[in-house]
């Protein structure tokens, strides 16, 4: 293998700039869809898991048991196996099994129960007495969920979302390699198959920076929202 100068490496990377931009967009798309699904479906699922626990507003042993079992079931699949198992469903939903939108299907599937558990854990930290005070004042279940549970847990929910985002940035790289595109896929195609180590290093650095930024922003926002 010939010696690669630093200047040459930079030149190679700048040639790849359009592809790097494209890959970043694809990663953003996969994450965006996965996180949206997690918030819209996993959030309510987590609230339901919490509310059906013994001693809570809608305590119901059977519902809680079934939901918990389903969540555990999906969460016990290694992500790569979940992806492969969902290929038929992805084909039906998206009409294709490659590209970031197709990859977002298994990502969403994994993100929903993951976020549901995080939400459930976060809500458990709210003192029961605070919810009871709202009940005693005549608050409806909807008012309790929005004005008490979500508002009191808001800092923890942001932290949960931060954890989810960072985990799924890494999952999205796996999904990308199996035909989804994105930063991970680019790193593998150039850095691994074409032995362009500079691409691999640059992509890993990019991911490191993104993770640090997400964590920083998440911490800042959570701290600002937390008045406890």
């Amino acid at each position, binding site marked *: 293998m010939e010696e690669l100068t630093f200047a040459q490496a930079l030149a190679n990377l700048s040639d790849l700039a359009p592809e790097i931009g494209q890959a970043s967009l694809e990663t953003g798309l996969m994450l965006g869809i996965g996180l949206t699904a997690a918030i819209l479906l996993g959030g309510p699922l987590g609230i339901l898991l919490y509310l059906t626990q013994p001693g809570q507003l809608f305590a119901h042993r059977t519902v809680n048991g079934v939901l918990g079992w389903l969540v555990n079931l999906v969460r016990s699949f290694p992500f790569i196996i979940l992806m492969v198992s969902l290929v038929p469903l992805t084909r039906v939903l998206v009409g294709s099994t490659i590209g970031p939108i197709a990859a977002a299907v298994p990502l969403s599937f994994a993100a929903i129960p993951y976020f549901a558990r995080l939400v459930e854990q976060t809500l458990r930290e709210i003192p029961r007495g*605070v919810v009871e*005070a709202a009940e*005693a*004042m005549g608050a409806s279940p909807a008012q309790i969920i929005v004005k008490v549970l979500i508002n009191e847990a808001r800092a923890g929910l942001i932290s949960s979302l931060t954890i989810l985002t960072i985990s799924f940035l890494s999952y999205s790289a796996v999904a990308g390699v199996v035909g989804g595109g994105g930063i991970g896929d680019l790193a593998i195609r150039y850095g691994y198959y074409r032995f362009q180590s500079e691409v691999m290093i640059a992509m890993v650095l990019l991911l490191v920076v993104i993770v640090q930024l997400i964590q920083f922003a998440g911490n800042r926002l959570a701290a600002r929202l937390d*008045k*406890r």
Partner: protein
Amino acid sequence: MIHLKNVHKRFQKPEGGWFDAVRDTSLHVRAGEIFGLIGFSGAGKSTLLRLINLLERPDSGSVTVDGQPLTALSASALRRARQNIGMVFQQFNLMANRTVAANIAFPLEIAGWQQADIDARVAECLDIVGLADRAQHYPAQLSGGQKQRVGIARALAPRPHVILADEPTSALDPKTTQSILDCLQDINARFGVTVVIVTHEMHVIRSICHRAALLDAGEVVEILSVQDKQVSAQSALAKSLLEVA
């Protein structure tokens, strides 16, 4: 004002079997009075108090508050009835992410008040409990006594006819205790709100109550009456409590 008729409440014990926390008890609290519930730990004071606003639903018997048969109401009618019954807690139970003003506004928001009315009423209640300068603070920035004042202001905000207080001073030092008791007495005198207060201290009964029920093992042993800060009692249990105090 408050009629409990033959209310009975049992809880399932963790090890199996049942525990009768309140046994077939009847009680009448008159409009405008400060009524105490006193007894040793585990006597069923809190359970009896929570039966009044149906935080605990009785297994049998009926609860009527301000002419409303709570035990016969639908869920939404019960919610509306509860807006007429304020509650104050030993652990305050304020919302940590809401300011003092927003905590007091909460019962008004859920009752569907207009924003302008809410603001005016919150300011009024802050004045009543002497916390006007703390409106924009968060509960974490307050002392225990101040938190309980917020709790009282929150209970008072929707102009309820009844306030239920479960050991509102047990987490506070003696001096703060007295100021909170004075605050409750002041509210009772000025607005005619009926107050039911749970305590295990005869001092609280003597200091602000008109009458009190002495509870033991889920039953009312005696109704005590208070005259000029003197408690008159017949039962041996009441006399022993008076000696301790």
